[in-house]
């Protein structure tokens, strides 16, 4: 898999951008010394990258997020430090963008310098089990709205079709045609199809560029148990 210096994850609200971004950052850390994740989500009040901060830092991955993330106020501010990772060419940056065009608006202020450096990948995260993007036409429409708001074009697709803990191998296999249709309609390559770790063995030979992921973004009452198995 080829890695650009800056990888942005954007897509429809609830498509799984944050969880994919956390998994991708861990994957990058295997190959590169300095990896940072920037949480630019100005839409979501709960279930943010901030939830995984201690875990990411324990893996040597620096998290940059709004000082108000997970606090008791809903202030959609952006972290000043985000500029640093965009300009610091020694860092591999993973950028978690908020959902839909509303979330992607935050990218506008960073787009000129990202485009100027021209060493980035902007990935469209898709999930066919989200009811407002169940097919090619609706997903491509959301894609265009995000590109307009962000002032940037996507360069690839991440098929993250899932039903959370209830996802089956058939769900993943059944989503491939959906991702291919979007790929054909948009002209974007499918960079990877994500699959829960426990399903990886059963689908890896049937889906190209299969990427095993863990569910790090969890409900609060499940966190304690999750923290146990993370260690």
């Amino acid at each position, binding site marked *: 898999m080829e890695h650009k210096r800056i990888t942005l994850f954007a897509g429809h609200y609830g498509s799984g951008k944050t969880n994919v971004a956390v998994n991708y950052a861990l994957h990058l850390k295997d190959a590169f010394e300095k990896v940072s994740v920037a949480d630019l989500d100005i839409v979501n009040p709960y279930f943010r990258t901030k939830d995984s901060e201690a875990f990411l830092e324990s893996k040597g991955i620096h998290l940059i997020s709004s000082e108000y993330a997970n606090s008791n106020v809903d202030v959609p501010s952006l972290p000043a430090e985000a500029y640093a990772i965009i300009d610091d060419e020694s860092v591999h940056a993973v950028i978690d963008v908020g959902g839909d065009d509303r979330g992607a608006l935050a990218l506008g202020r960073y787009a000129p310098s990202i485009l100027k450096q021209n060493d980035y990948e902007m990935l469209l995260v898709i999930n066919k089990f989200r009811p407002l993007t169940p097919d090619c036409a609706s997903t491509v429409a959301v894609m265009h709205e995000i590109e307009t708001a962000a002032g940037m074009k996507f360069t690839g697709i991440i098929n993250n079709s899932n039903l959370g803990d209830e996802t089956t191998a058939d769900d993943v296999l059944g989503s491939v045609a959906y991702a291919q249709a979007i790929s054909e309609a948009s002209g974007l390559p499918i960079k990877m199809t994500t699959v829960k770790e426990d399903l990886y063995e059963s689908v890896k030979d049937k889906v190209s560029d299969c990427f095993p992921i863990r569910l790090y973004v969890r409900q*609060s009452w499940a966190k304690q148990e999750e923290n146990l198995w993370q260690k």
Partner: protein
Amino acid sequence: MAEKVLMKGNEALAEAAIMAGCRHYFGYPITPQTEIAAYMAKRMPVIGGTFLQAESEVAAINMIYGAAAAGKRAMTSSSSPGIALKSEGISYLAGSDLPALIINVQRGGPGLGGIQPSQSDYFQATKSAGHGDFHLIVLAPASVQEMVDLTFKGFDLADKYRMPTMLLSDGTMGQMMEPVSLDMGEVKEYDKSSWAACGTKCEREHNVVNSLFIQPDELERYNFERFERYAQIEANEVMYDEYRMEDAEICLVAYGVAARVSQNAIDKARENGIKVGMIRPITLWPFPKAVLNAAADKVKSFVCVELSMGQMIEDIELAIRCKKPVLLCNRTGGMIPTTADVLSKIEEANNIGGDK
């Protein structure tokens, strides 16, 4: 749609409202329920419904009054401080016998409080949703699937009894994502022609929707009649869920997100040999008094788990006529009790000894 989809609680309830025939949504944004308005703003224009962001919560609830008076299924949603602003209008709905669904995705309070989840509007929802003698039917979902099912049910109960119904949710239920089925079956239609102000076509007398009564005895009569209906609801519409209660010596009582934490704690306590179960109210009004009172004759103690300073605990004590001790396990201000918090309270309840 038989296949499951992955939805946020807020989105799922919005879609369930649409499937229940709601074509009129009026609201005002507030975290953590804004996804409901955002979803309605996207969907309503596509299906020929009306989404309107009102200039305030007060305006929104009065728009609900208008739509409900015309016989339409109408819904508004807000979070704690916003519900307080709607309370005058909620009382007017009750006083005019109008069906409507009101969603409260609770956040921490009092005052502006904070955006994290809470259950501290229990008193407000079940005892004092506005001025005057009235009740709301109050439904408490504990999963995204129940956000769907109880929204659908809430519209039906509102129409069936001609009264406002509240879905009392919390920020966690609103924000979390779970797979759901949106297969809910037929929408039951109710004949509203005897009271709805939907046009006489010069063929009948005017229907008047009103909560003002000039003569006090007339107002009293309406109140008496309304409370006869409430008695029917208390007799027929109580909903609750029991979890591992067969041989339980300790009974947890929790709703919404607190019930999810409690369920994990019960499983852990059972591994340690403590016989504990849960009665989870699904209707907070009518409150499942009878089943709790019956349980009080079998268990040695109760533990109330809630995200407030202790509100539902009073209804439990009343329901069981104070026959057994009721311990409180609580966090507030936007904090959620951990499984460990609940476990340690279960152990405390287990040590109370046996006047069983």
